[in-house]
């Protein structure tokens, strides 16, 4: 069925938006095979975003953990500091080809908002970003970055004031302005065709890993680890390896204070099947289908659902989804900073945390790739606060 991943996915959106997603799909189907479009995007990825990103052998970390050989896919080195730019350059370019003059986007940690504001500045489109009030507080630096880039940042004070509410508000704005505006959805979620478009634009990560690792090691990885909120960086690195049965795929969800607490955002262990934000997938919800307030230290993973393709990979046991708590993620944030001199985004630190548990159990000839989806500069103040350290500004 169109736009489905097993039973997941679909297009559960108001009628007002239906023609917009249909036109988007038509445009995407055309432009993804259009030589001039692909050439423009490739150029931007190379000359502007800085691709390919490095695949870095973390030698000290490998020795310290004493197991599998660890490689870091350095998406943190991309322009704007995360993997988000891969999808955004594709979508904003597509929006421009479609004749749209304005883009809107939700953001959690602010990385997707910053990337969208950046691409809009470069390609000359108006830009508005929606961000939950709680997130504008914990990611204040990114708010100012977006404004510097010429975007208008709308603070969302409805609901839980986090990523889910930012998506609600962006969807509402889109129903008002769908004629001239493209919604640059930031993750592999929402109504079809977004989960497919975002996955395709992010799949450059896994393609590069495969090539780089074949060059450096002459073989495929044994394990690929990535953090999962909606799941765009994870699907980006997984996709190339889904057909390679020998490669274990592990998605790390944000467990907040733990999956048995009511302060968690780990959808796979705590969620149930539902229909929300345009898609059928797993969601944290109560018995009457009310979406549950979720929690994580990481604004980017603080989302009550998971992308439909991940839900499917879970159903068919092709990928494994594991919960990682705030505490484990903060420890990994500090660990990677000290052992490799790389400060990871707190989102990516969830993947690092699980890798630290898994690597020592693996043989030394095994290879693990961690998707370091973003850099941690934005999180420094929040982590200091978490650790009770006062930073004077």
């Amino acid at each position, binding site marked *: 069925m169109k736009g489905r991943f097993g039973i997941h996915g679909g297009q559960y959106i108001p*009628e007002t938006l239906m023609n917009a997603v249909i036109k988007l799909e038509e445009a995407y189907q055309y432009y993804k095979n259009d030589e001039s479009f692909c050439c423009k995007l490739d150029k931007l990825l190379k000359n502007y975003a800085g691709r390919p990103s490095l695949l870095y052998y973390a030698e000290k970390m490998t020795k310290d953990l004493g197991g599998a050989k660890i490689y870091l896919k350095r998406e943190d080195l991309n322009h704007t500091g995360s993997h988000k730019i891969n999808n955004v350059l594709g979508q904003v370019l597509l929006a421009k080809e479609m004749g749209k003059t304005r883009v809107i986007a939700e953001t959690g940690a602010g990385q997707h908002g910053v990337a969208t504001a950046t691409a809009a500045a470069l390609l000359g489109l108006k830009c508005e970003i929606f961000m939950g009030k709680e997130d504008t507080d914990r990611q204040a630096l990114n708010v100012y970055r977006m404004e510097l880039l010429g975007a208008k940042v709308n603070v969302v004070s409805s609901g839980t004031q986090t990523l889910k509410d930012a998506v609600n508000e962006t969807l509402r704005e889109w129903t008002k302005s769908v004629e001239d505006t493209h919604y640059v959805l930031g993750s592999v979620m929402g109504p079809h065709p977004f989960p497919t478009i975002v996955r395709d634009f992010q799949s450059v990560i896994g393609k590069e890993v495969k090539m780089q690792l074949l060059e450096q090691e002459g073989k495929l990885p044994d394990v690929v680890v990535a953090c999962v909120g909606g799941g765009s960086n994870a699907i980006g690195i997984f996709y190339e390896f889904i057909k390679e049965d020998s490669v274990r795929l592990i998605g790390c969800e944000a467990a907040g204070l733990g999956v048995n607490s009511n302060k968690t955002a780990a959808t796979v262990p705590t969620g149930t099947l539902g229909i929300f934000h345009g898609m059928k997938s797993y969601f944290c919800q109560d018995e009457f*289908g009310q979406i549950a307030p979720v929690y994580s230290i990481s604004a980017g993973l603080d989302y009550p659902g998971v992308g439909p393709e991940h839900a499917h990979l879970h159903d068919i046991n092709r990928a494994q989804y594991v919960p990682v708590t705030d505490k484990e993620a903060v420890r990994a944030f500090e660990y990677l900073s000290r052992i490799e001199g790389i400060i990871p985004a707190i989102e990516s630190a969830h993947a690092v945390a699980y890798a630290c548990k898994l690597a020592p159990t693996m043989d030394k000839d095994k290879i693990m790739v961690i998707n370091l989806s973003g850099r941690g500069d934005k999180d420094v103040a929040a982590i200091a606060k978490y650790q009770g350290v006062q930073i004077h500004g």
Partner: protein
Amino acid sequence: MGRIDDVFKNKKAFIPFITAGDPSLEITEQLIHAMTESGADLIELGIPFSDPVAEGPVIEKASLRALSAGVNTDKIFDMVERVREKNQIPMAFMSYANPIYSYGTERFMANCRKVGIDAIIVPDIPFEEKEELKPFCDQYGIVLISMIAPTSKERILKIVKEAEGFLYCVSSMGTTGVRNEIGSHIDEMISLVKQVKGIPCAVGFGVSSPAQAKALASLSDGVIVGSAIVKLIAEYKEDCIPHVKAYVRDMSRAII
């Protein structure tokens, strides 16, 4: 499907919307009776949802008030059952997909039939996904109301072909909420519909004044009003009944 067919028989229909459980289910029950007495032809009853993406701030807040007062789907069914003991006005539920789906779609429709709900309106189930609900609606005789919007254009044809009961015509872009100006394309939309078949068309989104209602009713078969009523409920809370009653009377008189 009898009760829905009667709504538009030889008259223009006035369709008020309220959120079930705002400010309490007792008040909702009284409001249904009061609106029936003052001339409502069909009542649209909203099942509150935590994240109502098609709503503007007025109805969103009503949803959150109802949920924080402890309202849930079972309690709403019980309330409707009590209403039906003395009131036969046609009633439709407005719900997002998730409260229906997670309740169990079949169980939901079976309960609708049991308590006497005639139709459902689900803003996040477009034509392409209606198989999610339709088989169960058919099984239990619940009318699934289709919606068209100003952006529907060529989609109107296929939507109308399969539409039942009446058509919910979204007057303007965006979410629900009071507007001063309502798009001028409504007559165009409705004439397209009527070329396909003679299904009644009720216009909603943004309607608040009797003058607006009168103008829209002259182009259509009925008018749906939500936010303007929900605003009165938010303002007067437990004392809202006479205010809503007077408003519904003025509106339903305006469209005759």
